[in-house]
């Protein structure tokens, strides 16, 4: 990993990014929309290397909500990967899921959540769960590595079985908070 990167990527020994990838395959996810986050970097690489998954890099996360709507119209199951700050960009667009009863699973890596260094990450990090729930999203948190795969599995199942927006928030406690050498 780039030692100068501001975000923290999961430890190379961590198996949960690969477990999420395996779940995407198990659930036959065909489209992955994302704005990159260091916490999802390994998962993004796995998806990009998979010719059966269409990866769309967005200019803003709300594009991903609309993309999932279009994918579902055409019979593709999709997920949206983003950082917690990106959740704030999605709020009005989430109405699409309610208007049409469109499944919209989101996998969110948290910043501003646990040991955060950057003050700018705190407001949206602290509000992520509240604003998602205010928009009718079923939100489940995973704060230990072993909780991530079952929670993501549940999030994908609840989206496609019950036709609504759902989200897993992957806690910063699992990903780690970078300190810029200011421990």
């Amino acid at each position, binding site marked *: 990993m780039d030692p100068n990167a501001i975000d923290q990527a999961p430890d190379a020994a961590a198996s949960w990014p690969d477990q999420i990838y395996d779940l995407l395959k198990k659930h*036959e996810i*065909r*489209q992955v929309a994302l704005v990159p986050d260091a916490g999802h970097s390994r998962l993004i690489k796995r998806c990009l290397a998979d010719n059966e998954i*269409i990866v*769309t*890099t*967005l*200019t*803003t996360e*709300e*594009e*991903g*909500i*609309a*993309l*999932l*709507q*279009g*994918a*579902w*119209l*055409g*019979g*593709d*199951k*999709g997920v949206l990967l983003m950082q917690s700050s990106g959740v704030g960009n999605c709020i*009005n*667009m989430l*109405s*699409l899921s*309610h*208007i*049409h*009863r*469109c499944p919209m699973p989101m996998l969110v890596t948290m910043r501003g959540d646990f040991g955060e260094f950057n003050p700018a990450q705190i407001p949206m990090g602290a509000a992520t769960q509240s604003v998602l729930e205010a928009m009718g999203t079923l939100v489940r948190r995973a704060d230990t590595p072993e909780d991530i795969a079952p929670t993501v599995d549940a999030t994908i199942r609840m989206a*496609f*079985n019950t036709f609504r927006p759902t989200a897993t928030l992957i806690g910063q406690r699992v990903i780690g908070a970078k300190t810029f050498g200011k421990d």
Partner: protein
Amino acid sequence: MLAESGKLDRRELTRVLLEDRGEMAVIAGLGAPAWDITAVGDHPLNLPLWGGMGGAAMIGLGLALAQPNRKVLVITGDGEMLMGIGALATIAVKKPRNLSIVVQDNEHYGETGMQETATKHGVDLVAMAKGAGIPRTMFVTKPGEVPALKAAIHEGNGPFFAVAKIDATSKKLVLPPRDGSIIQARMREAILGPAAHHQL
């Protein structure tokens, strides 16, 4: 096809573009474009939007990627396109051959009191699409240019982006079904057959 202003009549334009549409799926941005596609003939392969402003082009992209052998047309307004303008970059990178976007540009926010949009003040959406890297574009102001516009939409050599300058007058309201779950389900069934409603 011309209104008294000398500009294109939006509903006549929509009628011509959707005539003999075949299996083409159509996403319409909220407001007048949604009323337009409904006025010229509601259709299971129509998704008239009631909200999600700024999302029409991206819905078109998601559908075009899922159904690469089916033509997908997004018809939307200048205000709606401006709100999600970054989508032009996202679409240019994905290069969906089967996706066309037509902006019916009346230079106003028609549903909220006809306030001016940025296109009234010189913002050039075609230049923005070209700058994003969408290679095939058109700028349409005259009825004589509409057959070429229609041909480009049906050609399947996209992504294709066009702006049609239209008369700003509001037309008679023709409302699509308001239950979005029905609008979604009927399009899914038209594309996927009865399997659309069964467990994936």
